[in-house]
């Protein structure tokens, strides 16, 4: 009995070609890393809120971003920021979202400050979570609702950071809002709005207080470490 030589040879050739084709695909996988994207909001001609007579929001977000970046770097995170100074022409919100979406970070944090309220407000996008009926059929991601697919991860990230801040004895509010560039991010994303610390019995701590900012930065770093651990191994993009 003679074996059919041609079909066997064809199958071997197909298997060989398939294994060759798989090599570049595995080589394109993102390298394991934990990248945090920081966006100190406002800047340049956009001062943001006026926190006091001569203190614009853009100054506080920048100083807090520098503090947070240092703490995160010492905790083993790679950090990308949209600005580390106050340029005359700051990035637009769309440009900030483009930078974040191209760098595929593990988490995106937008930093804001306000003169009202108490403690830290953690905001997630109020877009609807993805609908399973549409998840497989839509190939393009609408820019205005790009965050929609990451809402579950963003809510979990907000909860993790909220717990870390509570453990640091800082008051936290978890809310949702529609905000640019938060709605345009494809990564798990939250906005952190720092408000003055106004305890029932005691003096108000302004948002510009260095110790207050350091406490928040340490708590966020702790929360992100927990977040990274809960994800399993350090990962790149979460889609």
């Amino acid at each position, binding site marked *: 009995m003679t074996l059919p030589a041609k079909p066997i040879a064809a199958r071997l050739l197909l298997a060989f070609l398939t294994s060759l084709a798989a090599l570049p695909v595995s080589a394109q996988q993102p390298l394991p890393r934990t990248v945090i994207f920081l966006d100190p909001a406002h800047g340049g001609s956009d001062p*943001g809120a006026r926190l006091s007579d001569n203190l614009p929001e853009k100054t506080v977000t920048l100083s807090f971003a520098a503090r947070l970046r240092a703490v995160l770097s010492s905790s083993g995170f790679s950090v990308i920021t949209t600005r580390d100074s106050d340029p005359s022409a700051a990035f637009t919100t769309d440009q900030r979202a483009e930078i974040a979406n191209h760098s595929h970070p593990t988490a995106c944090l937008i930093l804001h400050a306000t003169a009202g309220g108490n403690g830290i407000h953690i905001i997630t996008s*109020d877009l609807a979570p993805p609908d399973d009926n549409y998840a497989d059929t839509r190939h393009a991601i609408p820019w205005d609702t790009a965050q929609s697919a990451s809402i579950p991860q963003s809510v979990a990230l907000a909860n993790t950071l909220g717990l870390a801040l509570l453990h640091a004895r800082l008051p936290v509010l*978890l809310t949702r809002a529609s905000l640019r560039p938060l709605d345009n991010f494809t990564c798990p994303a939250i906005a952190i709005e720092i408000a003055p610390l106004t305890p029932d019995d005691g003096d108000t701590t302004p948002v510009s207080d260095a110790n207050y900012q350091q406490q928040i930065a340490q708590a966020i770093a702790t929360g992100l470490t927990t977040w990274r651990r809960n994800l399993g191994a350090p990962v790149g993009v979460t889609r």
Partner: protein
Amino acid sequence: MIPRYQRILFWSLFAGIFLMSAFLLRGCQQAHKRLAALNDATPIAAPTATSTEDVTLYLANDTDASITPTTESLALPQAPTLRARTLLDHLLSAYSLPTSKHPLQSGLAVDDVFLLGEPTNGPDKPSTSSIPVSSPQARQLAIVNLRGSFVDNHPSGIQVEALTLQSIIGTLHAALPEVTSIRFLVDGQPHDTLAGHADLLRTYPAVDTTVHPAPPTETPQL
């Protein structure tokens, strides 16, 4: 001796002067009344002619970032656009009271509210709201035209701005169920943000915006 025809002419002229004086005086009085009426700020349609009704205001609270529905009795016009505008003016003026938990500056806030028929969404357009729209019938788009003075004086911050928008959206949704989506203009023009943060360029779904934020939990709710 004055001739008779001259005397008749004199008295005729005298009578003419008297009549013209009376005519001018009457004209001045009418012009005065007309100008006084223009300066009168009394509403053309007196609200006292309308019976009061229960309306639901969605009131914001900055302390806990909550939106709570509250029922009040108000006299509102029947025309939907006037009704929406009056309701929003009443809502936002409540925030300028000293006891407000979401303090805003006093003054008129809403210039106009327009209601437009909205085409029914096809099956390929997913909702962008976290809460699904319940009524697909008689869909209307409400365009709220805010005054520039209101926007300029609004406190700046993500939470405080979001609460104002959620308060407006929830109140409109309760009063006008046919409204399914809401857009905002400022002085008739598209505007990026309310006061530097909350997005005013997107179309918001008209939904119940009642919210009481929960604290972080050990078991995250996805």
